[in-house]
């Protein structure tokens, strides 16, 4: 029985090994892609280097000498067009995939044949050759028998090692235990020690450590040799070129992009080394425990550490511990004395897992065949979540079996995981940044919450899962909780992709108040009264909107509180904690939300415009915004307080309470707007008392849409903050929770009917929440105006997420011709602009203009009337002017010319053409309902429009020529 539990507790390290190997494999795809493209394009000169994704970015106005924010805005200006261009020019990941496949095959061959090579090189000998009396072979066979190991196993002797040790190597299904020559002599004097060493090695075989250790080593060495070192070499070569005076706009302004790939490579190398050493150390300790279980005497571990390790330079020894693959004797003894240490969560492993997750997500994001959506992120999360769940789950499961066992809360582990994610993101983001520092680095701290919320949630719900009465229930619940943990982690990371990254780059409000300007433009009215509200609104919406239309996030937010609520109510009789207080706190929070909403209305009523029509303008938008603020604030505050005053299951209780608050608050919002006009000073738009169901449901839907997901996730973050604050206060007071909240860890005696009550509670809360989620996730159109605004804001928000696809620095700087930077960059930009559609648009406009010109000439050549004038074919002119107008409009929809002083004449000429063409159309076939005009007036207008068009044609010709000249300077 005991031998079964050991491998199970080992599965955490197995998953980590698997994650490490997937990370190495996934990282090699983009690395090989860059290497292949570098080799393929090494001879490109001049314009040919501007094709592909770089061309798209230059055309959109990307500027390596600018700042991150400028580039973000430039690429966001025509986000859809840029996305389309990038999608058209995206290089397939196939060279990288093929190379990775080759790498994998090579690593597999190394893994397979390494044992044989090792045998040959070491000149090991069979045991029988040194076993004169046959006792050695018999003893080894007996030990093998005792462990019950099934795979093929052979023993050999390495005569060249005088130490009293052994090692094991091999490949799946065929293992070799290699005894050192010194160990053979030891068998005579210290037979117990001999057995301990052999059993330890057999434990490695039993735990499949040989497979993991040697497979990861083979893969890593092949990867270093064929991917990492060449990448470093290319980076070094680029740096040498740049330092040796090669002139390029990329240097030194955009040196970050050059160093980012080297930085990511170094991070990967450090990470793999530390993770591998950590895993091997853990596996050693597991093998010790297993060997003792098989009968080795623990006294054999009473060895002194080698001299010079602990005495001479203790600090150095401690510092280098994470790099060593073997634990010291003291550590081994500690673990043998208390095997619970094995399942303890270490900060290092969480940090490494976090950094691996960040690098993995970034590498998988380059696999374009996975689609532009969140598939790659799902994949990364699916690989990381089992690791997190197993690491954190082991101490929880163990604490349940041992009476005195105590598992951590998961907060510290989560924070370390977040630190890893943060570091990974910081290094990886260098690939698409040209500044050394993020403009708003404080937003990176969001990763602490992104990681801590799922880890704490998992730790607490797993405890609830283990309290279920039946084994099947426990297992099913644990699996469900792991899935929800994955969804919560995904939500956090996806929030960062959609919004957080942009905010950290300084573009939270779409750059320089873009969102505020958009509101001011689309909602007519007097916005100057609400400047402060508007800036708060655009900042707040940037934070809460990224996930508002993501169904997985919606599902995660419902399950985050519903699953624990059900688990709480299903706990084993006699140990069920009280939930009544939590629900009561939620209701109190709901009342607080009502009060907050009423207070916000009251404060705004002083600024209320005079007429209902005016009130539906900016006032209503601001009113809704403050309603949202009141609802969210109430929920977050409730969550923080409940978490601070709870003894156990803090996060879970906080989420349940916050959900009660949220649902109550939504009811309040509906009532406020539906009964608008009856509420005296709290009235919003109407003055007459009447029931407005539509008004209530429309505004309510908008509020729910914006807050449904973000409130739950925000409440979880607030709950963690509450736990932290309460912990700090308790520590300051110097006693553990003596102040005591109203909650004791009380248990409810089982009563008849309580199951019914529980089911009622779940249904009362769950059904409305699911219905609301279904409504907001499926509504495509909503009459509430904020919806419309938000759609635009999220659409633009997705653009920065596309940027990591490009790898500008790795291939550009070394090919820059030695010229002064500004004109060269201008020519790159304008050339790319022309190349990616500018020239085509100019051609189409010219063709339409020429057709019109031909018609003018044809008309002029007609026979003149008596008054010296000719009759024009109105239908033909209308058609041709329409075409010209359409072409001009299409050209205006293309990227603006990247150089501002060329953009002005170009856009002016286009708008003149469009205007003239519009007039021409309106005058030739007057639109219905237009003003009646006399023939003379029409003639005058027609001629004026034609003159305008002719002037526009001249202007656009000039503008195009100057653009072409600017593009032509770099000698194609």
């Amino acid at each position, binding site marked *: 029985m005991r031998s079964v539990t050991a491998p199970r507790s080992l599965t955490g390290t197995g998953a980590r090994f698997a994650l490490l190997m997937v990370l190495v494999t996934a990282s090699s795809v983009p690395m090989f892609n860059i290497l292949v493209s570098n080799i393929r394009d090494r001879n490109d000169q001049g314009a040919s280097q501007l094709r592909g994704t770089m061309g798209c970015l230059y055309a959109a106005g990307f500027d390596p000498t600018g700042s991150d924010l400028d580039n973000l805005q430039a690429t966001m200006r025509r986000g859809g067009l840029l996305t389309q261009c990038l999608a058209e020019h995206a290089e397939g990941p196939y060279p990288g995939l093929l190379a990775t496949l080759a790498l994998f095959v090579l690593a597999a061959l190394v893994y397979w044949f390494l044992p044989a090579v090792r045998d040959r090189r070491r*000149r090991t*000998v069979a045991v029988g050759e040194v076993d*004169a009396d046959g006792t050695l072979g018999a003893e080894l066979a007996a030990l093998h028998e005792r462990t019950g190991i099934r795979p093929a196993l052979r023993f050999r002797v390495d*005569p060249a090692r*005088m*130490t*009293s040790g052994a090692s094991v190597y091999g490949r799946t299904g065929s293992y070799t235990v290699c005894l050192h020559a010194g160990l053979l*002599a*030891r068998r*005579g004097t210290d037979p117990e020690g001999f057995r301990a060493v052999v059993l330890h090695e057999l434990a490695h075989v039993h735990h499949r450590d040989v497979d993991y250790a040697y497979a990861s080593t083979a893969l890593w060495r092949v990867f270093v040799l064929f991917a990492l070192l060449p990448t470093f070499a290319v980076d070094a070569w680029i740096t040498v070129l740049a330092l040796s005076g090669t002139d390029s706009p990329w240097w030194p302004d955009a040196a970050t992009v050059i160093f980012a790939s080297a930085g990511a490579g170094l991070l990967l190398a450090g990470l793999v080394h530390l993770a591998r050493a950590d895993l091997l150390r853990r596996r050693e300790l597991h093998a010790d425990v297993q060997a003792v279980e098989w009968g080795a005497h623990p006294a054999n571990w009473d060895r002194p550490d080698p001299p010079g390790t602990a005495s001479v330079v203790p600090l150095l020894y401690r510092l280098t511990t994470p790099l060593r693959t073997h634990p010291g004797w003291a550590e081994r003894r500690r673990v043998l004395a208390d095997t619970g240490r094995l399942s303890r969560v270490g900060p290092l492993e969480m940090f490494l897992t976090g950094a691996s997750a960040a690098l993995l997500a970034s590498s998988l994001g380059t696999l374009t065949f996975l689609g532009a959506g969140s598939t790659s992120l799902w994949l990364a999360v699916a690989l990381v979540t089992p690791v997190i769940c197993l690491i954190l789950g082991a101490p929880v499961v163990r604490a349940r079996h041992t009476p005195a066992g105590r598992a951590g809360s998961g907060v510290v582990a989560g924070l370390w995981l977040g630190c890893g994610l943060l570091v990974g993101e910081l290094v990886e983001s260098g690939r698409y940044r040209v500044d050394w520092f993020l403009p708003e680095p404080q937003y990176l701290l969001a990763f602490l919450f992104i990681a801590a919320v799922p880890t704490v949630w998992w730790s607490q719900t797993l405890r609830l899962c283990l309290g279920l009465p039946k084994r099947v229930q426990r297992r099913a619940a644990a699996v469900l909780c792991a899935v929800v943990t994955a969804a919560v982690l995904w939500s956090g990371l996806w929030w960062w992709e959609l919004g957080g990254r942009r905010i950290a780059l300084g573009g939270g409000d779409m750059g320089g108040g873009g969102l505020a300007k958009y509101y001011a433009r689309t909602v007519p009215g007097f916005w100057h009264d609400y400047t402060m509200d508007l800036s708060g609104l655009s900042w707040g919406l940037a934070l809460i909107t990224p996930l508002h239309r993501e169904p997985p996030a919606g599902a995660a937010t419902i399950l985050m509180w519903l699953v624990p609520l059900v688990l709480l109510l299903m706990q084993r009789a006699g140990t069920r904690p009280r939930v009544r207080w939590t629900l009561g706190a939620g209701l109190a929070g709901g009342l607080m939300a009502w009060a907050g909403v009423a207070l916000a209305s009251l404060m705004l009523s002083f600024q209320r415009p005079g007429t209902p029509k005016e009130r539906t303008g900016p006032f209503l938008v601001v009113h809704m915004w403050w309603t949202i603020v009141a609802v969210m604030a109430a929920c977050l505050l409730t969550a923080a307080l409940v978490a601070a005053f709870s003894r156990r299951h803090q996060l879970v209780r906080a989420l349940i309470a916050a959900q009660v608050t949220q649902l109550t608050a939504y009811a309040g919002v509906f009532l406020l707007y539906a009964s608008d006009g009856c509420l005296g000073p709290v009235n919003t738009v109407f003055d007459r008392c009447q029931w407005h169901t539509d008004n209530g449901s429309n505004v309510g839907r908008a509020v729910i849409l914006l807050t449904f997901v973000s409130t739950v996730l925000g409440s979880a973050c607030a709950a963690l903050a509450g736990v932290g604050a309460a912990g700090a206060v308790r520590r300051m007071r110097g006693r553990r929770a003596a102040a005591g909240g109203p909650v004791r860890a009380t248990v409810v005696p089982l009563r008849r009917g309580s199951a019914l009550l529980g089911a009622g509670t779940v249904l009362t809360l769950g059904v409305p929440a699911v219905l609301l989620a279904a409504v907001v996730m499926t509504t495509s159109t909503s009459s509430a105006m904020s919806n419309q605004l938000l759609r635009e804001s999220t659409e633009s928000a997705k653009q920065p997420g596309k940027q990591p696809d490009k790898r500008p620095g790795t291939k550009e700087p070394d090919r820059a011709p030695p010229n002064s930077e500004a004109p060269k960059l201008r020519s790159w930009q304008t050339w790319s602009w022309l190349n990616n559609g500018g020239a085509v648009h100019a051609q189409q406009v010219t063709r339409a203009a020429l057709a019109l010109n031909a018609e003018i000439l044809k008309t002029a050549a007609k026979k003149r009337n008596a008054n010296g004038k000719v009759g024009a074919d109105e239908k033909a002119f209308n058609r041709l002017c329409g075409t010209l107008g359409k072409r001009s409009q299409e050209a205006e929809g293309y990227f603006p010319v990247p150089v501002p002083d060329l953009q002005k004449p170009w856009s002016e000429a286009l708008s003149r053409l469009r205007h003239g063409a519009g007039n021409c159309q309106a005058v030739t076939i007057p639109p219905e309902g237009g003003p009646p005009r006399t023939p003379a007036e029409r003639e005058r207008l027609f001629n004026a429009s034609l003159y305008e068009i002719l002037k526009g044609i001249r202007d656009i010709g000039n503008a195009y020529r100057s653009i072409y000249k600017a593009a032509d300077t770099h000698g194609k």
Partner: protein
Amino acid sequence: MYVRDLVREVVAEHAAHELPLVDSLRKLDDDRVIRTLTGRGRKREPLGFGYAELAALVTPVVWLVLDQAARRTVDAAMESATARGRAGMRRLLRRTGTRAPAAPDRELAGLEPAELALVRRHILERAAERGIGLREAEALADSVVARIATGEGEQPAVADGPAAPPAPDAPRPPDVA
């Protein structure tokens, strides 16, 4: 008489449990054995486990001292620097994996009484270094010296022969009257 045979005889008599060790070492050539026995390198293998400290072993003591003695006789034969260089080159080649023709096993021949005394002293010194007790060390040293003295000029393979009596000129332990 070959060094490796003498070592095995002595070990069989004084520390039979070390016989597998000697047998495994006998699979290597003399140079490699000496490198192994003198090497202090503690190379870590990924899944290795064991005790690094070298136990009070008899084998390295005897083998190293006898090898030194044998080499002195060989050194006298090839004093030229070129011969030494060739030996070094051979060692280098063997290390890189190309098998040079195996060097003949070292032989002990024609030791003077003064040299025998030196061998005895060296064994005592090395044994003390390795933590072997004085009495045991002296018995060991006496046994080695006696074997060299009696084995001279005879057939080398005497592994199964009766233990030779100590040589008359060997100094006796002080507690033996």
